[in-house]
């Protein structure tokens, strides 16, 4: 009986809890760069976009610890941080990732190379 339930546990956990997505992305969108609780300055990468390659979907981000290449996956949400303009943050597209813009990136866990779980990009004016 015990081993049945151990097997069952593995199945249930596989069904129900294996994803690494605890940060609720929906409200994350409205949090300005650098203010994500428990994450900014600890678990996220904050810096400036040094280069952007639309073909490989790779961005190079400068940071205090040196430049880092991060892949932007197809499902990576891109959010436009317009909070400095007192405007509502919005969803963006890859083209919004422009050299020189400030970004904050949460990296996916368990990936062999850095992949963005989400990326916030500071935009100067209304869009």
């Amino acid at each position: 009986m015990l081993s049945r339930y151990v097997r069952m546990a593995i199945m249930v956990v596989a069904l129900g809890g294996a994803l690494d997505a605890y940060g609720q992305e929906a409200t994350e969108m409205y949090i300005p760069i650098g203010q994500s609780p428990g994450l900014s300055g600890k678990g996220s990468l904050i810096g400036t976009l040094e280069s952007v390659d639309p073909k490989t979907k790779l961005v190079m981000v400068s940071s205090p610890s040196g430049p880092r290449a991060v892949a932007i996956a197809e499902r990576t949400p891109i959010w436009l941080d317009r909070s400095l303009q007192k405007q509502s943050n919005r969803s963006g597209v890859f083209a919004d990732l422009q050299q020189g813009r400030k970004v904050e990136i949460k990296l996916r866990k368990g990936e062999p190379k850095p992949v963005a779980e989400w990326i916030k990009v500071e935009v100067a004016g209304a869009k």
Partner: protein
Amino acid sequence: MREWPGWSLRGRNEPSLAVSCVLAGALLALPACTAPSSDSVSRGNEIFFNQTFNGNGRTCGTCHPARNNLALDPAFIATLPPTDPLFVAEFNPDLKKNFENPKLMRQFGLILENLDGFDDLENKFVMRGVPHVLAQRTSIDSNQGPRTGWSGDGAPGDGSLRSFATGAVIQHFTRTLNRVPGVDFRLPTEAELDDLEAFMLSLGRQQDLSLPLPLKGIVAQRGQEIFLDNRLGKCNLCHVNAGATANFGGGNIGNANFNTGVANLPDQPADLAKERNPRDDGFGRPGDGTFNTPPLVEAADSGPFFHNNAVETIEAAVAFYNGDAFNKSPSGLVLAKGDPRGIGIRLDATQVVAVAAFLRVLNALENIRQSIELLESGAGKGFAERAEARELLERAVSETQDGIKVLDGGGLHPVAVTHLRKAGALAKKAARSFFRRGTLARQAIDEQRNARAQLTGAP
């Protein structure tokens, strides 16, 4: 604005916390508690019940009112004035559309959440009940990180309980649907998040029970047996010791998410109302259909039940696990696979009632524990602190009334109910008394103990 200042008094009163731990240990064979910083708890209480974060007027306590077990239900909602910030969508033109559904809120206690994003407010939302926030210290941790909210992914940032308030402010406190920080609300500061977390972790039980308890009622006793029987009720697999953690034989895995098929229930109240009620896909974006496990000790007096407030009574919540919605769900099928007879969960009506009776008794014991703690704190206050004492004693009355309701609702332990009624009356008198507060509170404690002695053989 302040909802129930007694919480802060409890927070400030370290002996009270200590008493709570000692009592819990004595009553329920629990290990010692770790008390959080009382100053931080006290500040967290102030923030929880009074801080609007420059938003639409709501506080955390708007949806988690202390005088209703920190949860919302239609009966409580019906007692609120029309100007209560809970109803902000009814009087603030900026929030009239796509912020709440007043009909579903008033009829079924449901709150609107945009868990899959804010890009299509008209169509992308779910309607969820408001769970209590008691016993969070025992309910959130999992091997994979903290699980907050109904689907375990309720917090932004690092996903912790500490970060939860930030997401709640953005979702529920905003002045307009633009949700601009610094305009429509302000985000909680780091210090406020620390205090809110300390306060939330201080609420309710600090440790899980250790079952079985030496219960006296034969129906509740049988309910406990069924609950703990991994071949019959199977409840203890996902609700170890009637808490919110799971253990399938390989060790406790902490809080876990399961797809139990609640979303597949036919005739859900919110659907019957013919209002827009998109399917809730649970954890993640898009969701995987799973929701996390709530603790059960506090369940009986904090319905309606499940993430969608699908059923009103604890009996119906237990009966859910007999139905097709559960037994054809991924979790039901997994249970059936682990069962020699190929059965997920199948209980007869008497067994459903027995399990519910057991949960009612557990809840009443927790009400008694909390009442005694509050009465002792109230009795210990000096003459100059009588306002604080009154608040504590009134809260004890409220807890006692909950205990009465929970037992009465199941036709359980009428003698204990009589003792609780006496305890409630004495606590009420104590709250109003200038000179006999301590004596009356101590008499109320004696009645609470008499009631507890009817329910369990534990000292």
